[in-house]
């Protein structure tokens, strides 16, 4: 850790577990739930948020002394919207199918509360380098939950990971299917995303009693 002091390293490590944006701060739930039926979509979404949050935090932090506090929300929205348009155009150019699956949820990164939340809570009061680390840390914490949810939903729901069959072929009855295993199609439906996140929260809070509410 020659590059990072201990305080800086904590900026990245904290949001991974004990201050996770989704399970503890309850930010950015919308997109986390809607697109996690496939692992690939979750990964692309995470990378998009990583880019927007990392760059956005730096930009806001550089502008923090110039923005009048009354119009800061609009300035923040414009910065995010510009970054999201870049992400959207890149996705449309290089991964058209995937951008169809993500549909409006790429656009909804703009109103993803993690981004506005980090701008307000961190970037407005800290220098660019620390803001960058904070952005990356929170985006990785967000990504971790997305990837866990996407992993379980795709594995249990369609028996594949990133589109590659893992548990055998359900039609020719090979692998696990030969002993009577069935895909749980319910995992692909939207309500299961909520329940999977609920279970993640349950597991996390049972392991760390300090996080339990009331």
């Amino acid at each position, binding site marked *: 850790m020659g590059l990072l002091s201990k305080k800086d390293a904590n900026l990245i490590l904290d949001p991974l577990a004990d201050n996770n944006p989704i399970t503890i701060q*309850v*930010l950015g*739930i919308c997109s986390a739930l809607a697109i996690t039926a496939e692992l690939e979509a979750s990964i692309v979404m995470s990378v998009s948020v990583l880019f927007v949050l990392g760059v956005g935090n730096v930009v806001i932090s550089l502008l923090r002394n110039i923005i009048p506090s009354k119009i800061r*929300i609009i300035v923040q*929205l414009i910065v995010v919207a510009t970054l999201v348009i870049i992400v959207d155009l890149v996705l449309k150019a290089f991964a058209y199918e995937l951008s169809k699956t993500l549909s409006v949820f790429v656009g909804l990164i703009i109103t993803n509360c993690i981004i506005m939340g980090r701008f307000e809570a961190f970037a407005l009061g800290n220098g660019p380098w620390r803001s960058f680390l904070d952005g990356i840390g929170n985006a990785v914490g967000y990504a971790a939950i997305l990837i866990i949810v996407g992993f379980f939903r795709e594995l249990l729901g369609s028996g594949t990971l990133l589109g590659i069959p893992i548990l055998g072929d359900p039609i020719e009855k090979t692998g696990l299917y030969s002993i009577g295993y069935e895909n749980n199609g319910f995992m692909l439906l939207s309500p299961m995303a*909520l329940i999977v996140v*609920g279970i993640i929260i349950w597991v996390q*809070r049972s392991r760390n009693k300090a996080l339990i509410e009331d």
Partner: protein
Amino acid sequence: MEHIELFFKSIFIDNMVFATFLGMCSYLAVSKKVSTAVGLGAAVIFVLAITVPLNWLLDQYILQEGALKWLGAEYADYDLSFLSFIMFIATIATMVQLVEIIVEKFSPSLYNSLGIFLPLIAVNCAILGGSLFMQSREIASLGLALNYGVSSGIGWFLAIVAIAAIREKIRYSNVPPALRGLGITFIITGLMAIGFMSFGGMLTGGDEEVKDKVETVKVEDVLDDETIDELKEIANNTKKTLE
């Protein structure tokens, strides 16, 4: 009929919270008491009813491919749809600010009940999501856009009031400690979403039946033999002349 269908579809089948998870952040954060939930829900209906039609106009007359035709023929080729995110969010942020100022001036009592929620709403995914879904579902007219805004707002209102009521009651239940608060709210919302899925058959079921029938209609059923023969003759003649 179109209006009624869209109305019920947006409230129950495509419910913003349960089907598309829009506005989950404020849904989870502001659902501890029914009274505040009602306030926020009402504010969402209000803002959606204003911003969706407004963004519909923007989309139709500025952003869509060829939408600038009304400026003159030389503008017909422009496609500004890549700007829609920034235009929509700017409209929403300005409108929310404007509504806040107007309500504060003319109706202080309404401002007291809605006012504190309005700034929260500018960054609520449900509002931007409403406009983006309006764009991607190609809502056909201004009236339908207004209908879509109001009805999806009502759907969101229903969802947040319902969860707030449940959370008020669940305080007296013995939930496992690690699941208290956020965890159980997620799981209840999931169960409610499963419940709302049962509305899915309300409209789509009927639609599919009609579609199947339309697809299986054959030419022979519609036209009598004479007309078919005539048409064949005409087709053959045109083929010959072309050759």
